[in-house]
């Protein structure tokens, strides 16, 4: 009897799954077009899954093994089941393979069940709680049904009642695993996830066999050419179709939630909920069925929307409140942790673009800063002719006078900030000690456009970027060095699309820590050993996660004789200082402040000093009451500089100072 029942069950589940898949695909295709190489993407998908996705999943070893067993077992079991029970090819090795696959899957599902017994807060409950049972139902029933097929049990073992019962359990399993995959159950992540990997909007972020570095963090430029086009994302259907597909791939694992600094600070943002809200919007409905942690301070069930309705209402409530979007520091911790490779920051900035460019609704100081950037090319509204006032006594060489140097020192808007001026002075001292041939742009430099872009003002970003690119094109130099990771990131990764480096221009951009490490390695810098207390290092988001530079700053600290006491969250898991993405400007209230939490991390290590490499981090961390000392790497280096006598004798313009000079203060 099972012989007739099974093929019917299997093929009807498959047929329903195909119908569901069509419906789901139609939902995704509501999005804007975004051309992808279909076949190439599909071909790359297995590698992206095995290498890149599992690289992230493997940070949690147990979960990674669980997933390999369950998912691998399921895929094998499903294919074999179609062959064995659907087409009746039970003979020989196929049946045994099916037994093995379902057994592996069953073991995996036991681990899933264990995980679900006391799930951490970041995991969603709801339908996800029944998933282990469904997995077991599927794997167990497939296993049992296959036993007679391979001849372990006689064909007519048990009664027909048993057979029907088994078929019912299998129907449940099939329902969850095959039907649910395309009709919106928890298994949807497998279907959407696989396609998302194939058609990802940032194919560059995956590694390649050739050893590509697999990083893609620059925001994508918004097309400003057609005046009638809507700017940014107003409704879910304004996302590109593969962004929608990406949202649909979310497994609600909450890894993003667990690392989000805004969520931890009690600001109304939870990246997981945000992605789920986009899924709600994609299909239409309310968030009442969401079974995870809400946005802090915002109860679930009050927001609703549809694919062609606004995401943020001008007044009242829609899918998401504006302050949720403005809480994000664009730290990318969520993207770094997401096993499904979902791009939260892209989505948030897309929605911010609409709020800023179409509604003119950048909150708090945001609007003022944008006005300043438009009128004065710097966020503080200072006279652009006073960019070098801080260095009146330093006699800095200007690009306009020299035309050609090795290193262009990009100063950033920190020139207007008294704290950052100390860092800049230190950096200049280091460059001079190493006899670097450098110059600055002076008043020709403008804000890089970082903050304008993160606040959604793509127009101002592009205007600043284009003018900066034109200025840079006038001069000849090999490298740009800057102590501001935000400028670094923008110059290095985001100007390319507009004709910057990597495009038409031929220079590289370095963070000062990378450059100092290089100078030290080349023997151009000498330090007195460190005599201070314990030191920890805070990785700036825009240097670390955005650009993968974790080593150089640590190398420099080692060269100074400092042993870094690492914080629990360091390297790619570093916690944001709260200063990115214009968050200090939009200033959305929470229960705690992000820099306070970071300073607690510092305190936990017992360090008396925290080394940083970013003006924004310096400002945020120094703003903490009773903080550890905050010093930029450049300052630590400048303090430890030793000028060797030989060099002094050689140094042009410094003859007569042939004495060992220890410049430490």
């Amino acid at each position, binding site marked *: 009897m099972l012989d007739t029942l099974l093929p019917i069950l299997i093929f009807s589940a498959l047929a329903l799954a195909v119908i569901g898949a069509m419906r789901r695909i139609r939902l995704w295709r509501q999005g804007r077009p975004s051309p992808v190489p279909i076949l190439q993407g599909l071909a790359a998908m297995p590698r992206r899954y095995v290498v890149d996705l599992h690289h992230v999943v493997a940070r949690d070893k147990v979960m990674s093994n669980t997933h390999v067993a369950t998912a691998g077992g399921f895929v094998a079991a499903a294919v074999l089941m179609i062959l064995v029970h659907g087409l009746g090819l039970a003979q020989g090795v196929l049946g045994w393979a099916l037994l093995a696959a379902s057994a592996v899957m069953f073991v995996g599902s036991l681990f899933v069940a264990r995980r679900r017994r006391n799930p951490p807060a970041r995991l969603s409950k709801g339908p996800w709680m029944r998933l282990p049972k469904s997995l077991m139902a599927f794997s167990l029933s497939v296993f049992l049904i296959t036993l007679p097929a391979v001849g372990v049990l006689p064909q007519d073992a048990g009664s027909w009642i048993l057979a029907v019962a088994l078929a019912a359990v299998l129907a449940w399993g099939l329902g969850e695993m095959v039907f649910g995959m395309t009709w919106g159950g928890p298994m949807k992540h497998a279907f959407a996830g696989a396609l998302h990997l194939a058609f990802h909007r940032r194919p560059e972020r995956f590694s390649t066999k050739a050893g590509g570095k697999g990083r893609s963090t620059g925001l994508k430029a918004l097309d400003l050419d057609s*005046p*009638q086009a*809507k*700017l940014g994302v107003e409704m879910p259907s304004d996302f590109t179709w593969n962004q929608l597909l990406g949202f649909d791939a979310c497994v609600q694992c909450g890894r993003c939630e667990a690392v989000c600094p805004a969520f931890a600070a009690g600001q109304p943002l939870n990246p997981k909920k945000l992605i789920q809200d986009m899924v709600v919007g994609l299909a239409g409905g309310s968030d009442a069925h969401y079974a995870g942690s809400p946005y802090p301070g915002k109860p679930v069930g009050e927001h609703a929307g549809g694919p062609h309705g606004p995401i943020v209402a001008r007044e009242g409530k829609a899918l998401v409140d504006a302050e949720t979007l403005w809480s994000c520091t664009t730290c990318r911790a969520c993207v770094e942790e997401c096993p499904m490779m979902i791009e939260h920051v892209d989505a948030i900035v897309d929605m911010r673009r609409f709020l*800023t*460019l*179409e*509604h*003119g*609704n*950048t909150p708090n100081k945001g*609007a003022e800063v*944008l*006005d300043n950037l*438009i*009128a*004065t090319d710097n966020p503080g*509204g*200072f*006279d*652009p002719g006073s960019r070098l006032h801080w260095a009146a006594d330093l006699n800095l060489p200007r690009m306009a006078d020299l035309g050609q140097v090795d290193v262009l020192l990009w100063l950033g808007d920190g020139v207007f900030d008294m704290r950052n001026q100390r860092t800049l002075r230190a950096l200049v001292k280091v460059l001079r000690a190493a006899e670097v041939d450098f110059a600055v742009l002076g008043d020709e430099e403008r804000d890089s456009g970082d903050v304008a872009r993160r606040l959604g*003002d793509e*127009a*101002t970003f592009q205007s600043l970027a284009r003018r900066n690119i034109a200025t840079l094109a006038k001069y000849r130099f090999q490298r740009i060095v800057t102590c501001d990771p935000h400028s670094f990131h923008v110059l290095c990764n985001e100007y390319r699309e507009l004709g910057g480096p990597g495009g038409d221009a031929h220079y590289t951009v370095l963070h000062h820590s990378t450059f100092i490490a290089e100078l030290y390695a080349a023997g151009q810098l000498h330090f007195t050993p460190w005599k201070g207390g314990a030191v920890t290092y805070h990785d700036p988001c825009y240097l670390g996660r955005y650009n993968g530079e974790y080593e150089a700053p640590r190398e420099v600290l080692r060269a100074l004789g400092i042993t870094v006491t690492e914080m629990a969250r360091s390297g790619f898991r570093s916690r944001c200082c709260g200063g990115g993405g214009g968050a200090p400007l939009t200033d959305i209230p929470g229960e705690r402040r992000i820099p306070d939490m970071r300073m607690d991390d510092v305190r936990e290590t017992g360090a008396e000093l925290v080394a940083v490499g970013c003006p924004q981090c310096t400002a945020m961390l120094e703003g903490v009451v009773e903080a550890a000392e905050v010093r930029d790497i450049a300052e630590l280096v400048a303090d430890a500089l030793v000028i060797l006598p030989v060099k002094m004798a050689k140094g042009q313009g410094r003859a007569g100072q042939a004495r060992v000079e220890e410049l430490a203060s």
Partner: protein
Amino acid sequence: MRPDPQKSPSLAITVLVSVGCHPLTGRGRRADQDARGVELARALPLAEVRLLHAGVLDAGSDAALRGYLGMGFDALTLIEQPESSDVVPALAEVLADHPPTLVIAGTRAERGEASGLLPYLLAERLGWPLVAAVAEVEGVEGGVATLLQALPRGQRRRLQVRLPAILTVDSAAPAPRQSAFGPARRGQLAVHEVGEAVPDAELVEWVEQPARKRPKRLKIVKAASARDRFKAAAAKAEGGSGQVLDGVTPEQGAEAILKLLKEEGVLRR
């Protein structure tokens, strides 16, 4: 755009907007006070706001005027005028043709003559009352508007004025909303034809030169402690040495003013 007074209870407001100039960089922008005027108008319930500008249209002024469109307008009425024309007759003509209930303008322009006289000349021509330094329009009822006028040091005076009227705003009025790039770019500059432009006969005779820095009165604070310094900084401007001249001839008055200016070092010689 034009309200029908019989049918709609709405309030027709025309805001006069000019091309501004950033004080540090001199870049064109929406003029701050005019933008505050637009904000004041937008905040009124049932207001039908029309933006009106008279002047030269070129790339620079286009960008600046679009700053007002970005505050949420589909169009701005533009009366094109050649360089150095007197815009008062043109503005008066348009306003007299379709009189709004309220006209709002900034106190003074950010470039050009910037004498602040334009609203007064318009008021004189149209025969309408003018209220300066309006901080808020509290309400309009039965052809009378209730206004809050800003006085020095945060004081406010409540006034009532018969409509139609001209109001001017300065920086005491609420800050303007952000100008959004999308609407600014899409909005229309609707050109409105008027009669012959009238050249500004006086202006052409003037010679313009860059402003000299005006001498600043030095306030020397002899304070021993931070507290004293703070008190000095926070203290009200003291009159004290003021002098009221009563019943003097114009010549005597002028003499007295000239003497003061010399004493203060404003006029040398």
